[in-house]
């Protein structure tokens, strides 16, 4: 497994873990600590672990971090993730119009949409990279 694929799996696991942790926190806050639901944002601090990748998996001497094929795969994954982000973001902006019409939305709605979009971009990027490497099967030779 090369470093780009390893990073994609690592990022996917960290983000999904943080999202599940946040969802559980939100559930507990909603059930037992009414009015403190905002604390569900705290588990998203785990996202910082994504940037500790280089510390957790240091580059070995002589090891090549990535090459031209990896760059192509990363660029394609970025295009795919941003395309999906755009469609989801546009759709989420249309939902209030369709549901509420000419009314007003909660001030947290845009923040929530942007947070979800940020999570979605990262998840889609990781999945796009993993799929392009053939799920890492046969040492990611696809």
């Amino acid at each position, binding site marked *: 497994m*090369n470093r780009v694929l390893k990073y994609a799996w690592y990022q996917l696991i960290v983000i999904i873990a943080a999202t599940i942790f946040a969802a559980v926190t939100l559930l507990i806050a909603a059930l037992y600590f009414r009015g403190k639901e905002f604390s569900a944002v705290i588990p998203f601090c785990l996202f910082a672990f994504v940037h500790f990748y280089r510390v957790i998996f240091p580059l070995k001497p*002589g090891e*090549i971090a*990535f*090459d*031209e*094929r*990896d760059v192509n795969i990363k660029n394609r994954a970025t295009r795919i993730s941003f395309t999906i982000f755009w469609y989801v973001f546009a759709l989420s902006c249309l939902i209030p119009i369709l549901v509420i019409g000419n009314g007003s939305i909660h001030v947290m709605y845009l923040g929530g949409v942007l947070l979800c979009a940020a999570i979605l971009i990262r998840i889609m990027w990781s999945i796009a990279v993993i799929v392009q*490497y053939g799920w890492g099967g*046969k*040492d*990611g*030779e*696809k």
Partner: protein
Amino acid sequence: MFSTVGGAKMAKSEISNNIRRLRFENGQMTQQELADKAGVTRQTIIAIEGGKYSPSLTLAFKIAREFGVSVEDVFQYGGKAR
């Protein structure tokens, strides 16, 4: 044979290669050794050998140089001439 992008057809790679044969003719060179010499990852060499990835010109020249042959001896274009 073809992949579709936005309704338009795009020709897939028709480049074949002799990397596997050349590796064995050059002292049973491993994929890792070739990857290290060409400055790429082993997975990229595997993908090129399997015809799943067409390398850039720079990488093609690097690989050919490692075997001491010309690019045409390593890579062949199988497409029809227009």
